[in-house]
C-alpha cells in the first residue's frame, strides 16, 4: 500500500511550502526474478504510426482556420531596439496578428529580460512575430516590419567577454556563475607526482539540431488554451504558459504524442510558445509557430563551448595524485534555465584521487543561450580528462586501460558515499574491452600512409537515477485489457514501449493486453520533464506500483469469482491461474473484470524517494578503432564498442538504439560539428544543416553495444537506470585517443575537423617526422 506524508516548510522569506513523501514499497525485481516481458526485445508500440507518416507531431497539427506564424530576429549580436513598427506588416492581406515590443504585454523572461526586450543580446534574439494564412505571407510580412537598431559593442567568446573593458552583457557583468570544489591538496599532489599533464583543452559549441524544430500549435477555447508542443516536458510547458499568461494551470492543456528529437533543447519552455499563444489570442484563430532551421540554430539552445585547463599528476605506478581543472564555459546571452552544464562533475568522481580541485565559471557571451545537450558538461569534461589520462598512460608506458583500473573507485568521492552499483563501471571495462579485443595487435594496412589505432575512454554520469514525483494510473477494463496512463512523454527514446513492458510484466499480462497513454496534461497524472536520462527510472517504479496494486485487487476479485483462496492465485500471460491446477483451466482476466462491470479496478502508483546512503549514477566505457590517412587527413572510424551500465535492461531493442544513436552523435561531436560565428558581425555563419555538419549514414562505422544489464537493486524497484544520455559521453575522447595511437598526434581541441587534422599532420611533416 502506498504511503503519503506531508510536511510544512517555511522559507526565510516566510513562504510556506509543503514537501510530500510518498511511494509504494515494492521489493525490487532481483537478478533471479523470472521476468517474461521485461528484458526481451520488443519493437516500438508506435512503430506503425511512425513508418506510415500518421504519427502526429506538433508540426503536423492541422486545425480549421489555423494560421502560421514566424519570428523576426535580431541581425545584431548586441543592440538596442530603438524603433519597431509593424503597421505595414499588419496591413498585408492575409496577416491576422502581429506582436512586437511596441505592443507586447510585459512578460518577464530569462533572468532580467522580457518576452520582447528593448535590448537584444544575440543575433537571433526575438524582435517581432506575425501570424498569417500561410508561411509565404508570414515571410512577406516579416520583411515589412520596420526595426531600427543602435548596435552595441559585443563579445562572442569567452576570451572577449572576460577581457578588461568588455561590454557588460548583463548588469552584473559577464560572469554568470562561479562554482568551486576542493578536496585534499592538489599542489601537494602535483609535487608528489612522477608524471604530470598540464594543458588547455577546448570543446566547441554544438547545436542540438533536432529534426523537428521547436514549436507548437495553439488553440484557445474561451479562457482555456490547448498547446500541441514539441517538448520534453508537457507539465513544465503547462506551468510556464500559465504563469506567463496569468492563467491557472488547469486552464492550460499541453499535448505531445510524438516529437522529432530534443536532446535537451526541448526540456525548457522557450519564447515562441508564449508568442504563439498571444498571436492566437489576438487573431482569434489557432496558430502554428514552428521555428525555421535558422531559428532552430540560433535561439533555442546549444552545447556551451568550454575552455578547460587541466593538470593531472600520477606516481610511477600510475596512482593519480592530483586532478586540478579550471573550466570556463560560454553560456550565451542568457541563463536559459534547465539543468546547467556541470562540467566539473566528472573530474570529482571518475577516478580515485585524494586531491581534486575544480573551478567552473559560466560566462555570458553575445551568442544564443546554451541549454542542456545530452549529458551536458560530462561530454565536454570527458574529452579533456580522458585525453589527459591517455597522455599520462603514454608517459608512464602503461596500458591506458590498466591506468584507469589502477585508479578505479566504487565510491562517489564528491558525496562521500558508495555508488549504488560500485562494480558497474568495472563491468563496463570488462565487457567493452573483451568484446573489442583490447590489447590485441591491430593489423596495419599495407600502404604506409594509412595508419590505424585504438583508443578507450570511460565515464560516469550523474543522471539516470530518476526522482520523485511521478505518477501513473492503471485501469482494468471489463474486457480484460489494461489502460496505463501517465503524464510523461516519449521523446523518441522508446519510453512508451519500455513503460508498457513494465506494466505488463507486473500485471502478468501480455504486452498487447496493455494500452499505453501519455503526453497529455489533461488526461494523465503528473510526470516530470524527460531529461537527465530519468524517465524510465522515475516513471517505471510508479507504473510498477500502480500495476502491483491493480494486480492485488484483480486477484482479490478473482478469489471471489473462483472461490479460491487468493494465495493460490497468480496472473500470467493475461490468464488467472490457480496453483496446482492444469494450465488449460486458467481463467481469462476478462471473465473476472467483466463480471464486476461496471465496477473497475483503478489504481495509482507514485514514485517513491531514492535511498539516501548511496549515490546512483550510470557508467560506461567505449573503445574505438580508427584509420587516419596521413596524406589527406581523412579520419575513418572503423568500429566502436560500447558497454554502458544502465541497471536492468527493460527493452534491449531500444537500449541498442539509444547507444548507437548516442555514439553516432558522439562521432559528429568528435569530427565535424561546430557552430561558426563571424567575429566581425557576430552572425552565425552556419545556421543550417549544410555547413553545420552532422554525421551522415556513411560516417558511421559498426557500433557494437555490449549489454551489461546488472539490475541496480538499490536504485529503485525496477532495478533500471537511464541510458538516454551516457552513450555520447566517452565517444569523442575514445576517438581522439585512437587517432593519437594511429599517428602520434595529440589533439587538444574539438572537433578533429579535416582542417585541424591536416594542419597537424602537415606541421609534423615539416618537422621532418613522417608517419
Amino acid at each position, binding site marked *: 500500500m502506498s504511503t503519503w506524508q506531508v510536511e510544512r516548510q517555511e522559507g526565510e522569506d516566510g513562504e510556506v511550502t509543503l514537501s510530500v513523501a510518498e511511494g509504494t514499497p515494492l521489493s525490487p525485481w532481483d537478478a533471479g526474478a523470472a521476468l517474461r516481458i521485461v528484458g526481451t526485445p520488443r519493437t516500438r508500440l508506435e*512503430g506503425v504510426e511512425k*513508418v*506510415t507518416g500518421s504519427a502526429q507531431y506538433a*508540426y503536423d497539427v492541422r486545425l480549421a482556420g489555423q494560421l502560421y506564424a514566424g519570428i523576426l530576429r535580431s541581425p545584431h549580436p548586441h543592440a538596442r531596439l530603438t524603433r519597431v513598427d509593424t503597421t505595414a506588416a499588419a496591413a498585408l492581406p492575409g496577416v491576422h496578428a502581429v506582436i512586437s515590443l511596441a505592443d507586447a504585454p510585459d512578460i518577464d523572461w530569462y533572468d532580467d529580460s522580457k518576452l520582447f526586450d528593448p535590448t537584444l543580446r544575440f543575433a537571433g534574439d526575438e524582435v517581432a512575430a506575425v501570424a498569417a494564412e500561410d508561411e509565404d505571407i508570414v515571410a512577406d510580412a516579416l520583411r515589412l516590419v520596420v526595426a531600427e537598431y543602435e548596435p552595441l559593442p559585443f563579445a562572442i567568446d569567452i576570451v572577449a567577454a572576460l577581457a578588461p573593458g568588455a561590454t557588460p552583457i548583463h548588469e552584473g557583468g559577464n560572469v554568470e556563475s562561479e562554482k568551486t570544489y576542493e578536496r585534499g591538496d592538489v599542489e601537494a599532489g602535483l609535487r608528489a607526482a612522477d608524471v604530470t599533464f598540464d594543458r588547455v583543452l577546448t570543446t566547441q559549441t554544438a547545436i542540438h539540431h533536432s529534426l523537428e524544430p521547436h514549436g507548437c500549435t495553439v488553440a484557445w477555447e474561451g479562457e482555456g488554451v490547448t498547446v500541441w508542443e514539441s517538448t520534453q516536458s508537457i507539465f513544465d510547458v503547462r506551468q510556464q504558459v500559465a504563469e506567463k499568461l496569468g492563467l491557472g494551470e488547469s486552464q492550460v492543456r499541453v499535448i505531445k504524442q510524438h516529437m*522529432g*528529437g530534443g536532446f535537451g533543447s526541448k526540456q525548457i519552455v522557450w519564447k515562441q510558445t508564449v508568442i504563439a499563444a498571444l498571436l492566437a489570442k489576438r487573431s482569434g484563430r489557432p496558430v502554428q509557430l514552428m521555428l525555421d532551421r535558422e531559428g532552430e540554430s540560433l535561439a533555442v539552445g546549444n552545447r556551451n563551448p568550454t575552455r578547460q585547463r587541466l593538470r593531472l599528476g600520477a606516481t610511477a605506478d600510475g596512482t593519480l595524485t592530483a586532478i586540478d581543472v579550471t573550466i570556463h564555459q560560454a553560456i550565451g546571452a542568457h541563463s536559459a534555465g534547465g539543468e546547467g552544464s556541470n562540467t566539473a562533475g566528472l573530474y570529482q568522481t571518475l577516478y580515485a584521487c585524494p586531491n581534486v580541485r575544480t573551478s567552473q565559471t559560466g560566462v555570458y557571451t553575445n551568442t544564443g543561450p546554451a541549454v542542456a545537450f545530452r549529458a551536458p558538461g560530462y561530454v565536454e569534461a570527458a574529452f579533456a580528462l580522458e585525453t589527459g589520462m591517455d597522455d599520462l598512460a603514454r608517459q608512464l608506458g602503461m596500458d591506458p586501460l590498466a591506468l584507469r583500473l589502477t585508479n578505479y573507485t566504487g565510491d562517489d568521492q564528491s558525496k562521500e558515499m558508495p555508488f549504488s552499483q560500485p562494480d558497474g563501471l568495472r563491468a563496463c571495462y570488462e565487457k567493452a574491452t573483451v568484446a573489442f579485443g583490447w590489447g590485441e595487435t591491430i593489423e596495419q594496412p599495407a600502404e604506409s600512409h594509412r595508419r590505424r589505432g585504438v583508443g578507450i575512454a570511460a565515464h560516469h554520469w550523474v543522471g539516470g537515477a530518476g526522482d520523485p514525483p511521478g505518477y501513473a494510473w492503471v485501469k482494468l477494463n471489463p474486457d480484460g485489457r489494461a489502460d496505463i496512463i501517465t503524464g510523461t512523454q516519449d521523446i523518441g527514446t522508446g519510453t512508451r514501449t519500455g513503460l508498457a513492458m513494465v506494466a505488463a510484466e507486473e500485471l502478468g499480462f501480455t504486452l498487447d493486453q496493455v494500452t499505453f497513454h501519455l503526453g497529455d496534461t489533461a488526461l494523465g497524472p503528473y510526470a516530470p520533464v524527460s531529461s537527465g536520462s530519468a524517465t524510465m527510472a522515475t516513471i517505471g517504479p510508479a507504473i510498477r506500483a500502480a500495476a502491483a496494486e491493480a494486480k492485488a485487487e484483480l486477484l482479490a476479485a478473482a478469489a471471489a469469482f473462483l472461490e479460491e483462496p487468493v494465495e493460490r492465485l497468480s496472473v500470467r500471460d493475461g490468464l488467472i491461474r490457480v496453483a496446482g491446477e492444469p494450465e488449460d483451466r486458467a481463467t481469462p482476466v476478462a471473465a473476472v473484470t467483466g463480471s464486476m462491470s461496471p465496477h473497475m479496478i483503478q489504481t495509482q502508483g507514485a514514485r517513491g524517494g531514492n535511498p539516501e546512503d548511496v549515490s546512483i549514477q550510470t557508467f560506461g566505457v567505449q573503445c574505438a578503432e580508427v584509420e587516419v590517412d596521413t596524406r589527406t587527413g581523412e579520419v575513418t572510424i572503423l568500429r566502436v564498442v560500447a558497454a554502458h551500465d544502465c541497471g536492468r535492461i527493460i527493452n534491449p531493442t531500444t537500449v*541498442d538504439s539509444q547507444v548507437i544513436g548516442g555514439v*553516432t552523435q558522439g562521432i559528429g561531436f568528435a569530427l565535424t560539428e561546430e557552430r561558426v560565428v563571424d567575429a566581425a558581425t557576430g552572425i552565425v555563419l552556419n545556421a*543550417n544543416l549544410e555547413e553545420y555538419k552532422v554525421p551522415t549514414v556513411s560516417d558511421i562505422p559498426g557500433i557494437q553495444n555490449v549489454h551489461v544489464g546488472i539490475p541496480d537493486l538499490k536504485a529503485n524497484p525496477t532495478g533500471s537506470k537511464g541510458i538516454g544520455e551516457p552513450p555520447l559521453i566517452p565517444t569523442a575522447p575514445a576517438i581522439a585517443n585512437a587517432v593519437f595511437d594511429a599517428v602520434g598526434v595529440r589533439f587538444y581541441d574539438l572537433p578533429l575537423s579535416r582542417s585541424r587534422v591536416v594542419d597537424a599532420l602537415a606541421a609534423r611533416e615539416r618537422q621532418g617526422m613522417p608517419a
Partner: protein
Amino acid sequence: MGRHRHTVTLTINGETHDLAVEPRRTLLDALRDDVSLTGTKKVCDMGNCGACTVLVEGQAMYSCLLLAVDCQGLSVTTIEGLGHDGQLDPIQRAFIEADAFQCGFCTPGQVMSLRGLLDATPSPSDEQIERAVTGNLCRCGAYLHIIDAGRRAVVLDREAKEVRDVHVAG
C-alpha cells in the same frame, strides 16, 4: 506583383488533385498544407536533410526544392501512398522490425529514399542501400538500423512481390 495563383494538376498517391497555388509554393508546402498530407516532413527547407523526400515519377527528390507549379502533370508518391490493401509496405515493416528510428521524424524520408532504390534496383548491394540514404540525415543516429532495415526490406519486398504475382497468376 500580385499573388497570382496557378492551377496545377498533380497525381498524388494515385489520386488527381487540382491545386491553386502561387508559383513560389513548394511541393512540400502544397502536400503538407494544401492537401494535409503531413507525413512528409519539413526540416531544413533547403535541400540539406532529406526529411521531405517523395517520389516524383518514381524518383526520390526533395519536395522542398520543387515548385508545385513545376510538377504539373507529374505523379507524386508520398509516405501515405505506400502499402497495399491495408498492409504495410515491406520497407515500413522492415523499419519496425529493425528499430530503424527513434523520434521517427526522418523516417518517412528514409523510407521513400529506399522505396525509390528498390523500385529501380530490386536486389541492391549494401553499398547501394547506404548510398540511397546518404541524403537523409537522422539526428537520432538510427543509421545502422536503417541499413539493416534496407537489407531486410529487400527480402520482404521480394516475398511480397511473389505473393502478389501468385495472386495475379491465380
